[in-house]
């Protein structure tokens, strides 16, 4: 009976939602759009892990470099793959040379035919780039004829820049480093996987919770859109005999209809969002729409939870509203909000996190359920505490100007509504502050400071031994934007031809270049120097014995063969004090001026060129890369940066920023809808106030105060909760607690900016609603 009555009342509410004329429809649509946006974001966010997994799978399927010691023998099923990766305007370009060695040579995924030398197949994004004016510089580096495109199965993202070109004479270079011989692409490892450490897993968990909790709050707010109008309609039902319980269930039925339609909208928004996500790239990561698939279990959970939550939220929201017949809705004087159970939520959260304090990254994994539960409870605690705080504070606010009085009185009457409006932002800001603290705290663990001296060089290029270093240096000198070139040939020498007991490094360069690495007493071509004070160098003083024969590029027992060029330490060997070189190290070993090096030793050394650049020249890095590609197409010049960040750390941080941007935009939209709804409810009153001479400025200011007061309180509370959560998370990771005030201010500032933007956007409708038309009744 009870179930039947419930379903009958809910069904009646759902029917009213769709048959209630324009007003009913607009309410259902408003709810559906709100719920739909939330559901779409929920689905998109939860699809991210599957998208990243799909990217990994694709990357694995085309993996070619095994970095294994085992050499694959040539066969009719082998293919030689040369790695010709490059970078173009800070975007990675994946490049491979392919040379099949037999009829059964495997094709990489997404490629139907091996390109001939001088030809290439490219990813759609690279094709577009090369055909546009923006790709002109890159075209010089990959001048091959485009004969096809790489299919989706061969790419990890829709915006990936990649190409395969035909290679020739790769066999001689098949060393496993730059050129590999393989029989199957899926055997390759894309990179050695070291797994995520517990702190990174903690970060990912917290990022998800912090992003999804405001979305859930937004959905809860969306099912309450248009509540006041609905209450008036429900009063009419009371008049014809519906009791108060029935009325509430009918209201819940209306919300149920809106949320059900919202699920449909959400699915549609998700599909649209998936297509859009497939055409954009965030911080170097792009995906194909087909990657974004939330797990069926999760989708089913959303499909069930959202309508149930809509019913529960409506019943909860109506518990204090007394709907009476005769069209009168009396909101009973709100009962005093109780604090004790509101405090239980954050305290419960802290209690769940407490056992993991001081665990750090070296003491096993964090319990993900306790972490998720604890963070959720702390953040939900914000939503529970905020109405109490708003009530407590506004009750004590005195009356000032008319605009202030109007705002304060409005807040005193319906502080809960105001708090609800701000809840989403407060939770998002609290979570973001905590995460920023955690990021700043663990940053030192995941960001390695670069030792390189950027004032002396900004790029480093390796020149293969077969290429004369002087001519390479000359080419870089002629490159536009290059201010200075320091070129060294580098290698090793030892005390024996094979398996030396003592060994030391060798660097060859002109006097100017050598002065960059050591304080030379004097220098002219023909001089050799033994370095003193080098880091980790104990052998040089023992080897620097006049008349002793040493061997440049010695061989080793494990099969590594060297040129083994004999060299006698000259009598005129000079001593020089090592100084920090541009790479940030104090090198040891021997320094040779060019004519002091035995002629045969040249091929045993590898060139290193350090470049000082004029950063005001546009695309200077790519001009250098083009020159480097002409010298050695396998070379990938290094751009020096001030710090080297762990990739995993970097992508989590990226995820947070992208997610936070989406969540704040969503909450901003919900705030705007609520604000407009409130204004529409008060259209006649606003017109009446203007009729008896109220200045528009007064009313605009009152709207601003009405938003600013709860927002200020919300941001203050979120700062406290955020700092608490941040402290707890840092203690969990065993990192010294320090508050990054800049991030606290920037996060609260962003939250405040969203509200200000919403207020500004609601001003035009406010001014429109103040027109006297509102007084017309006929």
């Amino acid at each position, binding site marked *: 009976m009870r179930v039947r009555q419930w379903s009958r009342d809910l069904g009646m509410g759902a029917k009213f939602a769709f048959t209630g004329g324009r007003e009913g429809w607009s309410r259902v649509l408003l709810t559906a759009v709100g719920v739909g946006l939330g559901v779409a974001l929920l689905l998109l966010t939860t699809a991210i892990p599957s998208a990243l997994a799909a990217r990994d799978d694709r990357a694995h399927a085309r993996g070619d470099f095994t970095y294994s010691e085992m050499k694959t023998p040539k066969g009719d099923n082998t293919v030689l793959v040369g790695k010709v990766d490059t970078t173009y305007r800070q975007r990675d370009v994946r490049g491979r040379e392919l040379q099949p060695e037999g009829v059964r040579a495997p094709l990489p995924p997404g490629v139907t035919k091996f390109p001939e030398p001088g030809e290439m197949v490219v990813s759609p994004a690279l094709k577009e780039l090369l055909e546009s004016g923006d790709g002109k510089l890159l075209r010089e580096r990959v001048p091959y004829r485009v004969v096809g495109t790489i299919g989706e199965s061969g790419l990890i993202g829709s915006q990936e820049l990649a190409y395969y070109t035909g290679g020739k004479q790769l066999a001689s270079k098949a060393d496993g480093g730059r050129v590999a011989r393989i029989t199957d692409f899926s055997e390759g490892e894309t990179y050695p996987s070291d797994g995520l450490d517990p702190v990174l897993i903690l970060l990912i968990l917290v990022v998800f919770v912090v992003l999804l909790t405001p979305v859930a709050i937004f959905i809860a707010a969306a099912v309450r859109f248009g509540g006041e109008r609905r209450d008036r309609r429900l009063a009419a039902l009371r008049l014809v005999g519906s009791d108060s319980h029935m009325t509430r269930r009918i209201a819940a039925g209306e919300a149920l209809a809106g949320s059900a339609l919202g699920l449909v909208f959400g699915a549609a928004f998700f599909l649209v969002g998936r297509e859009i996500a497939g055409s954009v790239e965030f911080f170097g990561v792009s995906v194909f729409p087909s990657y974004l698939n939330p797990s069926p279990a999760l989708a089913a959970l959303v499909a069930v939870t959202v309508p149930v939550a809509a019913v529960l939220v409506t019943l909860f929201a109506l518990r204090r509203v007394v709907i009476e017949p005769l069209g009168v809705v*009396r*909101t009973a*004087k709100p009962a005093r909000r109780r604090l004790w159970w509101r405090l239980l939520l954050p305290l419960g959260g802290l209690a769940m996190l407490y056992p993991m304090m001081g665990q750090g990254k070296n003491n096993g994994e964090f319990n993900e359920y306790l972490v998720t539960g604890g963070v959720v409870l702390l953040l939900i605690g914000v939503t529970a505490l905020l109405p109490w705080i708003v009530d407590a504070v506004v009750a004590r606010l005195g*009356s000032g100007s*008319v605009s202030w*009085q*109007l705002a304060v*009185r*409005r807040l*005193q*009457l*319906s502080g809960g509504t105001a708090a609800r409006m701000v809840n989403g932002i407060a939770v998002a800001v609290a979570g973001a502050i905590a995460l920023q603290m955690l990021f700043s705290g663990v940053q030192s663990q995941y960001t390695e400071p670069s030792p390189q001296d950027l004032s002396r060089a900004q790029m480093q290029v390796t020149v293969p031994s077969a290429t004369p270093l002087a001519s390479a240096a000359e080419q870089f000198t002629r490159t536009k934007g290059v201010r200075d070139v320091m070129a060294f040939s580098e290698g090793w020498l030892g005390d024996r031809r094979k398996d030396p007991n003592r060994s030391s490094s060798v660097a060859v360069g002109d006097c100017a270049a050598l002065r960059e690495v050591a304080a030379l007493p004097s220098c002219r071509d023909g001089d050799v120097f033994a370095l003193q004070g080098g880091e980790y160098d104990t052998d040089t003083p023992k080897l620097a014995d006049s008349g002793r024969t040493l061997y440049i590029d010695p061989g080793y027992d494990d099969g590594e063969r060297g040129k083994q060029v004999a060299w006698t330490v000259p009598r005129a060997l000079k001593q020089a004090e090592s100084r920090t070189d541009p790479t940030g190290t104090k090198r040891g070993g021997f320094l040779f001026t060019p004519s002091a090096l035995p002629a045969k030793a040249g091929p045993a050394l590898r060139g290193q060129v350090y470049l000082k650049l004029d950063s005001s020249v546009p695309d200077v890095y790519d001009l250098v890369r083009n020159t480097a590609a002409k010298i050695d197409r396998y070379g990938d010049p290094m751009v020096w940066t001030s710090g080297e960040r762990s990739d995993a750390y970097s992508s989590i941080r990226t995820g947070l920023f992208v997610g936070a941007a989406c969540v704040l935009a969503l909450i901003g939209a919900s705030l705007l809808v609520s604000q407009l709804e409130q204004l529409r409810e008060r259209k*006649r*009153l606003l017109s*009446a*106030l*203007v*009729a*008896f*001479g*109220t*200045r528009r400025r*007064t009313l605009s200011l009152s709207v601003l105060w009405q938003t600013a007061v709860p927002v200020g309180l919300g941001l203050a509370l979120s700062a406290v909760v955020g700092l608490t959560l941040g402290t707890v998370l840092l203690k969990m990771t065993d990192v010294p607690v320090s508050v990054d005030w800049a991030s606290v201010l920037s996060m609260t500032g962003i939250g405040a900016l969203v509200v200000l933007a919403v207020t500004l956007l609601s001003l035009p409708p406010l001014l429109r609603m103040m027109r*006297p038309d509102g*007084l*017309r*009744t*006929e």
Partner: protein
Amino acid sequence: MTPAGALLAAHDLRKAYGPTNALDGAEFSIHPGEVVAVMGPSGSGKSTLLHCLAGIVPPDSGSILYNGHEMATMSDARRSALRRSEFGFVFQFGQLVPELTCVENVALPLRLNGTSRKEAERTALSWMERLEVDGLRGKRPGEISGGQGQRVAVARALVTNPRVLFADEPTGALDSLNGERVMELLTEAARSANAAVVLVTHEARVAAYSDREIVVRDGKSRDMERIV
């Protein structure tokens, strides 16, 4: 053209909302302390006439003289100032601000004029006493009856000692008993303050409280006293 001694007078007023002519050459005048009822069927243009006379909406053409000053050419700010200081308003549904208490609602026009809160609420209370609603001072509009709310609205309209009180169907939402009481109090208070009252109504028993009646039909007005 303007009747001698008229406080507020309108001549050849025209106002259209889209294709509908709400006012089509309407005439109007009122003297200090006079109560004039504007009558007519629904949609005849009587509320539009009130809105034009009060400077809430500007007419498309015609002239409105208040105390010898042409209102049609006044800026919006000037007209707003006039409404704050010289006019008072009562609407069909009171239009009290729901979040303010009754005394704060009555004091609101004074506060908008720059009077201090204490002084404004003291004056408001004295008007509430005259309208027999001083017991409701701390209550909010949601906690009082429709008749009580309308009396609070009358107090709010008179608190600035306006020279003209505009009342648009002030008893439209009340039962006859409450409606009569509100009208008695409204006209008594207005007469004692020598305020002119423009009373828009379609009920003859409400119009009976007036000194003169003007009937509006299809946007045109007729002064019943002159016909009589």
